[in-house]
């Protein structure tokens, strides 16, 4: 392969304040029928909030489709604007973040397997020289989660860190622990 990559560097302390855009946390507008709100906190190894973090999410539509030319299943019926699929949320002074979205559909994984509904997450902050990548899975999908080929590679005792927790009507909690006994599972992408 030809060229060598440009290295990663930290976003530094000011990214989360300067680059969020108005609709960042709203993958779909508030009040969209069926919308779910994912809330959580980003915490460091001392259990303290990370107040200068940035959370980005990327996911399929509820139908399990991507408005993207590299989805080999072909174009999405409603075109590129049907579902943006991307969310960006800065963390607050208490490390909290919020993403309003629709629950994604399951996805074919190839080899006849099926990936359970999931959201890919990138975590950035000062003190992180590269992003950390994790996934949000859903608590109302026990059978799909049990058959998911990615979760199958995760040690049983750590699975709980990848599954959001019901937190009320239309509300899910997904805390991200960078370290500690409840350290979230992060992925080598």
């Amino acid at each position, binding site marked *: 392969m030809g060229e060598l990559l440009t*290295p990663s560097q*930290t976003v*530094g302390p000011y990214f989360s304040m*300067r680059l969020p855009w108005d609709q960042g946390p709203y993958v779909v507008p508030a009040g969209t029928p069926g919308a779910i709100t994912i809330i959580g906190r980003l915490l460091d190894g001392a259990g303290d909030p990370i107040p200068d973090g940035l959370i980005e999410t990327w996911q399929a539509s509820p139908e399990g489709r991507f408005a993207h030319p590299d989805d*080999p299943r072909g174009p999405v019926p409603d075109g*590129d604007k049907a579902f943006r*699929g991307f969310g960006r949320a800065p963390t607050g002074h208490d490390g909290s973040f919020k993403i309003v979205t629709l629950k994604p559909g399951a996805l*074919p994984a190839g080899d006849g397997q099926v990936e359970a509904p999931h959201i890919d997450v990138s975590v950035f902050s000062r003190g992180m*020289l590269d992003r950390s990548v994790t996934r949000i899975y859903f608590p109302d999908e026990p059978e799909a989660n049990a058959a998911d080929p990615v979760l199958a590679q995760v040690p049983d005792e750590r699975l709980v860190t990848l599954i959001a927790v019901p937190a009320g009507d239309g509300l899910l909690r997904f805390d991200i622990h960078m*370290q500690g006994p409840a350290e979230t599972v992060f992925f080598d992408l």
Partner: protein
Amino acid sequence: MTVSQHRLVMPHAPGELILPTYAKPEPGNHPPLDFPPYKSTGLRHPTKALVLLPHRLTEVTGPLLGDDLITMQDADLTTGHAGEPQGQRIIVFGQVRDSGGKPVPDTLIEIWQTNAAGRYRHSREHHPAPLDPNFDGVGRAITDQGGRYRFITIQPGSYPWGNHYNAWRPAHIHFSLFGRAFTQRLVTQMYFPGDPLLPLDPIYNSVPDEKARQRMIAAFSIEDTQPEWALAYRFDIVLRGREASIFEDEGHDH
């Protein structure tokens, strides 16, 4: 380069999902997440083994952001205010490619930087240097069909930080790129040639490989410098590319 033997010999069933895999970085290309000279990494890096995430549909796609988010003016950080910002006007331009050498078109680039005095426009910033009412320090651009981009801005300053005694960051411009797939997401910093602070900076030096570090230093270009107006720096950015597959070699479109 990885060519799957399985793919070479097995015909594909109709409807079978054929997905690209994005090449892994070379060892030493990216910084370790735990780098004690940069103290803030201490409590903010994962300590447990990472779990391998194969590249499937969510990873080989990614947000295609842009046209509805930005205007042409977003690439010129020196306009949009009552007056012009203080400092040396510069042009920062380059090409975004993948590791296969292909240009990456239509991808969002976001930049942010200090003003000429080394100060960010931010409420938590305590560096006793002046703010510039004519400079926000944030820009956006979309690469063209050749993967090219161009910003007009001012030379950022150096600033002190609390990592260690007498710590100063070399002048830099932060870059954030999406590429075309979740695997290609990159946040980096562009540095300036000849900066005496580079050998002293733990963030720059967190990249283990010296040649990789140097890929973060822009090249001054007299050819692209505009007479009587602005110095020019070229900063090409290389994102992860697809590993070659037999189907791409044969020209199959998938």
